[in-house]
């Protein structure tokens, strides 16, 4: 907010999403409130959703009356008195704590944000998500009002088609076309569902949008409901997102009060209702047919398609399902025009995409970039490269359904077709970065253990097939792999892909197939040489201490659960290989990086 509106000299905004809260934002909030009360500062306090700077939470942004702002990171309750005293009291910026300044957006860590283009996240971290007034103040619900009062449903669909936006949930189906199917599908009663059952490990963009800007999702749904002719919308959100659910409830209530939801909205004769359905945390319920079964009160298990939801969806009625991110982009498209959206991106992939940077990248968080950026730009320019100065090894894109791309693919453009051609998928936009300490066999094993746990158990290939693949990978990681295992994995993976009922099973083998494609030597190393070059698989490594660099600080001794490390103070220590269980606790604690896993 450039203008705090209350006549105060400063406005202090605290990032108050789940990530901020997890990092200690509640203590910061309490400290801010107490200090402001105590110190009678000329200041207005507010909260906002996640700005996407996960690597440096809790984040506080201080606005002045001229519209300038400074973002501070890593703020603790202890730092609050000094922050207020220096910045608000004396008008002096504490340079050491600054993440970004509006006057020099690329300085400090500011390039994390400066290298992004934010459409979906346009309001995240900028407005109070629990206040409809703040959303309206920046032009919220204008697009919905415009569409409902001056456009036909077909015109709305045309605008969305013009934008070229493709479904951001993973499959990348053109949204305008999907809406067109649902619109044309015969039937009086139609349903609209917002898929907020985000479940990929390492993906958190939907949560951030719902926590930071729930109204843009609701506005997108109002527009979609109007376009396809649905008067009832559902938001299927997992119960593990309590803050998102709370803010959605507040937003829906506020919309009813304003007359944006309910009967005769925006003074027209159109009515639209939204209900929130809590999911019980089953990954498979992100699959649309399983999600509909769950909304209907059945066990969340997918059904074969066809028939597709556009004709036989929720309760057998025509239904349209889009992801949170897709809905959040719709108001922008209607307000700014589809053509403007289509100017962003590549020929076949328009607009922007939010990626969740996670893993061994230096700056973890939300990165929204235009389609067509290269992976290198996202990981290095936005993400700041690999943490602790290590070497980039691979990036797992699209969560457990996606694939692992190696360094030679870093110049691949982020675009549905190019990423697919490289062997991965854009999916929901998770990017888990691996460095040279990550074992690719173990990474594939991890993702498969996830999909195996989350398989609904309905179809044979997914239920037993992924289990048998997982067992082979576990064997390989334990050094018990057999020469024929690689071929066995490949054949079984192919059959599982062909025969599975839904996309969960159909894509579950992807992490294995791509790691086999790009890192086959690591598999062979495990099987034939019983070696894990990344020093990751406990059964295949030994740990030793480099006597040259060891300072004898004994940090490792304190964490070793089996007392396997001995040595005199300030003298190089040694590890007893017999007693060592290779838990690698010492490795993570050693300040001089003297512990070598090989």
């Amino acid at each position, binding site marked *: 907010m450039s203008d705090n509106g209350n006549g105060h000299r400063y406005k202090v905004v605290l990032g108050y999403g789940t990530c901020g809260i997890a990092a200690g934002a509640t203590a910061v909030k309490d400290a801010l409130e107490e200090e402001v009360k105590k110190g009678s500062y000329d200041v207005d306090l507010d909260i906002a959703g996640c700005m996407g700077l996960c690597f440096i939470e809790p984040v506080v942004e201080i606005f002045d009356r001229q519209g300038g702002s400074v973002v501070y990171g890593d703020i603790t309750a202890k730092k609050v008195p000094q922050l207020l005293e220096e910045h608000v009291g004396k008008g002096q910026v504490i340079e050491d704590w600054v993440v970004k300044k509006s006057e020099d957006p690329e300085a400090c860590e500011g390039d994390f944000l400066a290298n992004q283009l934010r459409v979906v996240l346009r309001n995240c971290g900028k407005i109070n998500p629990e206040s409809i007034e703040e959303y309206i103040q920046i032009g919220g619900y204008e697009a919905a009002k415009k569409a409902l009062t001056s456009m036909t449903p077909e015109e709305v669909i045309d605008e969305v088609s013009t934008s070229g936006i493709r479904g951001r949930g993973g499959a990348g189906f053109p949204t305008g076309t999907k809406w067109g199917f649902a619109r044309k599908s015969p039937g009086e009663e139609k349903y609209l569902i917002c898929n907020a059952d985000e479940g990929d490990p390492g993906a958190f963009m939907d949560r951030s949008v719902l926590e930071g800007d729930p109204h843009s999702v609701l506005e997108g749904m109002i527009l979609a409901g109007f376009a396809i002719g649905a008067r009832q919308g559902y938001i299927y959100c997992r119960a593990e997102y309590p803050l998102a659910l709370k803010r959605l409830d507040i937003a829906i209530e506020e919309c009813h009060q304003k007359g944006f939801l309910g009967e005769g909205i925006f003074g027209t004769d159109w009515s639209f209702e939204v209900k929130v359905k809590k999911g019980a945390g089953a990954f498979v319920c992100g699959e649309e047919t399983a999600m509909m079964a769950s909304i209907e009160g059945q066990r969340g298990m997918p059904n*074969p398609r066809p028939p597709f939801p556009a004709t036989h969806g929720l309760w057998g009625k025509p239904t349209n399902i889009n992801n949170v991110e897709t809905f959040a982009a719709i108001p922008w498209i209607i307000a700014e025009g589809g053509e403007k959206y289509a100017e962003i991106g590549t020929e076949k992939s328009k607009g922007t995409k939010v990626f969740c940077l996670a893993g061994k990248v230096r700056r973890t968080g939300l990165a929204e970039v235009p389609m067509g950026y290269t992976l290198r730009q996202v990981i290095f320019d936005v993400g700041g490269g690999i943490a602790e100065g290590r070497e980039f090894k691979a990036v797992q894109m699209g969560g457990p359904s996606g694939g692992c791309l190696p360094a030679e693919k870093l110049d691949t453009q982020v675009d549905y077709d190019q990423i697919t051609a490289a062997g991965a998928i854009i999916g929901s936009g998770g990017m888990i970065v691996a460095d040279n300490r990550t074992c690719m066999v173990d990474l594939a094993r991890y993702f498969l253990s996830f999909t195996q746990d989350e398989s609904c158990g*309905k179809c044979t290939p997914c239920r037993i097939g992924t289990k048998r693949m997982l067992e082979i990978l576990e064997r390989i990681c334990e050094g018990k792999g057999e020469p024929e295992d690689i071929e066995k994995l490949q054949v*079984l993976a192919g059959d599982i892909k062909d025969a599975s*009922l839904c996309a969960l099973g159909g894509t579950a083998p992807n992490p294995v197939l791509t790691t086999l494609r790009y890192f086959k030597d690591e598999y062979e190393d495990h099987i034939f040489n019983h070696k894990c070059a990344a020093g990751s698989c406990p059964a295949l490594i030994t740990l030793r201490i480099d006597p040259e660099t060891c300072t004898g600080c004994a940090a490792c001794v304190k964490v070793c659960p089996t007392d396997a490390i001995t040595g005199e103070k300030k003298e190089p220590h040694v590890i007893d290989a017999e007693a060592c269980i290779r838990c690698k606790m010492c490795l993570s604690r050693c300040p001089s990086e003297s512990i070598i896993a090989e």
Partner: protein
Amino acid sequence: MIKVEIDGKACEAPQGSTILDIAKANGIDIPTLCYDPRLSPYGACRLCLVEVEGARALLPACYAKADDGMVIQTTNEKLERIRKTLVELLVSDHPMECQGCSKSGRCELQRLADKYGVTESTFTGEVHEYDLHRENPFVMRDYNKCIMCGRCIRICREVQGIGVYDFINRGFKAVPGTPYDKPMQETPCEFCGQCISTCPTGAIKARPYEDRGRVAALDMLRNACAYFKMPEEDMMKALGLEGWVTRTTCAYCGCGCQLDIHVIDNKIVEITSPLMVGSGQGNLCVKGRFGYDFVSSSERLTKPLIRKKGKFEEAEWDEALDLVAKKLSETKKKSCPDSIGVFSSARATNEDNYLVQKFARAVIGTNNVDHCARL
């Protein structure tokens, strides 16, 4: 009507038919496990996957509706490889102790394993070790043999309208179960045994047959049938067993469900119902399936009884009928015809019931006629 081509054969079928319907009608065999004609299609076992020209993925024949002009392949190298993999995967988590399983010979998994030459799986790994559920006298569940086809769940919900079962857990640990794993007698289960009738493997079995002491003979018989691929009756003859299967109509109520009564040594050992035949379409209730004890019960009345001095005594038919006639005539004369009511039984034939009402109306002169069609 629509026209499709299956494996090069031109077929015609009514609109709305599934690919499997059309294949079956045209004598083309597509393997299935989760399919039962009594139930809605499910598409889970994936054995019936077929290739449809122009389709993005393989389609389950049991679920996919055929469109006019579809060109379908039900068998080729890829499909057969997938089917073999699927059977191998199922076998990798199945106790292959067919010799000791009373389902042997009628087990659908056994038949497919046989067809694809799978004796033991190329995939080894964790195998389930569930406890046997034998907590009630009718249904025994052995989930080590379950292949997760969901047929028990669907038949209970769709045909019986009860819903005792659903899946519990996820992934490899997913298994059918009752709510909170309660014993079946604490659920709304009516013990109709429909789940037994649809289970393709030995996961759900009927305990009454098992407890008959003849299960060993029957097991041996069926194993031999499976091994020599001979029908049950022929095998019985070959083994010198006196046994047969009789197709009859259930006598419990007026529905007219068809029964196959399996008899060995003049004792009923099992009752099944032929699929999609007669009004029951292969469905039976608890009485039709399990209520046959009376046939060879020693307590069964074979002679009329007359109460003499407060005690029942055996009598001849003439004496008994004379007594009834006398008492009815007396009552009719002393009071009136309407003081008499006639109560008949659904277990009697239509002809007998007709005669009973005729007797009531024409001989006694009352309309007080009822019968116990409410079993």
